[in-house]
């Protein structure tokens, strides 16, 4: 024993800053070690988080693939330009050529009244009845295929309006209902992904929060002792917060693996389906940025979940 025992020892500012960093590092590895020592229960918690993160990520990917695939198809927009009846066929061709010059138009097909009638007779089944007509009542039609790059329904709408106002044009009818429907379906799906993501984010917060709460309860005695020998709340909180961060981060890793594995399972059937449509479309996986997003989101949710649990329960534990 020596006399310095009469002096309480307090580290200096510099070494206290170092100590702060050391304390963080200690909590960082301590919480990781705790997961390692209880691998099964840790893994189950992380797997739940992984699934909760994989679901919206997977939905998002499906949506992105659908949008891409839809973009690759013939947009299906087609404008039927009904010309004035009796317009000379020379003028019809001239108009068609004039329209072909335009950038927003890919190609133009001329359907003369005779062709239209023939087609109609074949497809309608009214062949005999139509034979009774003296005159061909059908107008000449130009079928206009807009440039496939034009996917914005509004731009197509404007083009149709301009076509309708041209000379010798009776009417312009746009057949793009299914395109609008597809857009509406995609918009609905997007909203669904957002709603599902929100709910599952809440689930992750609750799962982490509950896990950390149980952990705090199990270590009640330790917390009491630590408080008695001068531990601040921040010091006690730290390993639990890092625990939540680990759960979120590793859960997000599991989520990414799940998404990629599911994608691998879907790849074959999708390529076969694409083959049937004479396309060599292949599914788009998670990009690096997507992966980073999932990891950050998982980490943040894990931290937030533990922060809620820790804030509420550590304050309540006081030595008695």
């Amino acid at each position: 024993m020596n006399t310095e025992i009469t002096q309480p020892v307090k580290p200096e500012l510099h070494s206290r800053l170092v100590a702060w960093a050391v304390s963080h590092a200690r909590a960082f590895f301590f919480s990781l070690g705790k997961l390692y020592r209880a691998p099964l229960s840790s893994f189950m918690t992380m797997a739940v988080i992984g699934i909760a993160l994989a679901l919206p990520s997977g939905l998002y990917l499906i949506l992105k693939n659908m949008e891409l695939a839809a973009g690759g198809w013939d947009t299906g927009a087609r404008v039927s330009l009904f010309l004035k009846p009796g317009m000379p066929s020379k003028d019809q061709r001239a108009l068609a050529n004039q329209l072909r010059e335009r950038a927003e138009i890919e190609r133009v097909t001329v359907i003369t009244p005779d062709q239209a009638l023939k087609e109609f007779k074949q497809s309608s089944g009214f062949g005999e009845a139509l034979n009774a007509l003296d005159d061909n009542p059908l107008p000449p039609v130009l079928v206009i295929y807009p440039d496939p790059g034009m996917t914005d329904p509004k731009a197509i709408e404007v083009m149709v309006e301009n076509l309708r106002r041209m000379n010798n044009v009776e009417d312009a009818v746009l057949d793009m209902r299914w395109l609008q429907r597809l857009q509406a379906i995609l918009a609905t799906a997007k909203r669904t992904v957002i709603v599902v993501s929100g709910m599952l984010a809440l689930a992750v917060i609750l799962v982490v929060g509950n896990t950390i709460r149980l952990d705090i309860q199990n270590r009640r005695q330790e917390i009491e002792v630590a408080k008695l020998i001068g531990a601040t709340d921040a010091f006690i909180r730290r390993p639990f917060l890092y625990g939540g961060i680990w759960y979120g981060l590793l859960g997000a890793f599991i989520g990414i693996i799940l998404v990629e594995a599911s994608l691998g399972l879907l790849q074959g059937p999708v390529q076969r389906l694409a083959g049937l449509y004479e396309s060599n479309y292949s599914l788009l996986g998670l990009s690096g940025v997507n992966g980073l997003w999932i990891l950050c989101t998982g980490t943040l949710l894990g931290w937030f979940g533990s922060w809620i649990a820790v804030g509420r329960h550590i304050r309540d534990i006081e030595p008695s």
Partner: protein
Amino acid sequence: MILFQNVSKRYPTGQEALSNISLELGDGEMAFLTGHSGAGKSTLLKLTALIERPSRGQIVVNRKNLNNLGSRRIPYYRRNLGIIFQDHHLLYDRTVFDNVALPLVIAGFRHREIGRRVRAALDKVGLLHKEKAEPITLSTGEQQRVGIARAVVTKPPILLADEPTGNLDPTLSREIMNLFLEFNRVGVSILVASHDLGLISTLGKPMIQLNEGRLENPDQGTMA
């Protein structure tokens, strides 16, 4: 070092654990707190460690009035105290070394410094050879000594002990009390609650006797 002025403590249940206590323990002094169970010994120590707050009166420790100490400052205040419990409060999921190191870890000491101080403290209580042992494998007396090593490892100026020999046989009890006397010899102020009158009356230190929350011998309220 520790000054109580007209301190009363009434628990929310209505039980008055301490009534109008005034006493003083000077720097480097040591005293025993005696009385039947329920006399208020534990309450007095809890008030000193700020585990409880007094209902009335002032407590001044190390020239700081505890009434002015906000709850955020409590952890830093407690680092000036070494607290020893009857049931030693060791953590069974870590080694003796890690138990003793905990106050140093909390206070933010560096790794190498921690090793040096923990070994010094364990050496003092005669358990240096047990640093890697699990507390559960130690005898009750050894566990209590680990608890003491943990309390003194930061070299606090004040030690508080609540029935430190409560579970020990007379020989072990005397060993523990001798340890306290040794710490006191190098200037640590010590307050020990104990009802082991046979033992403590032989140690030549003042006794503060409590009876149902009151001082039995008010003249001796001021030590030394």
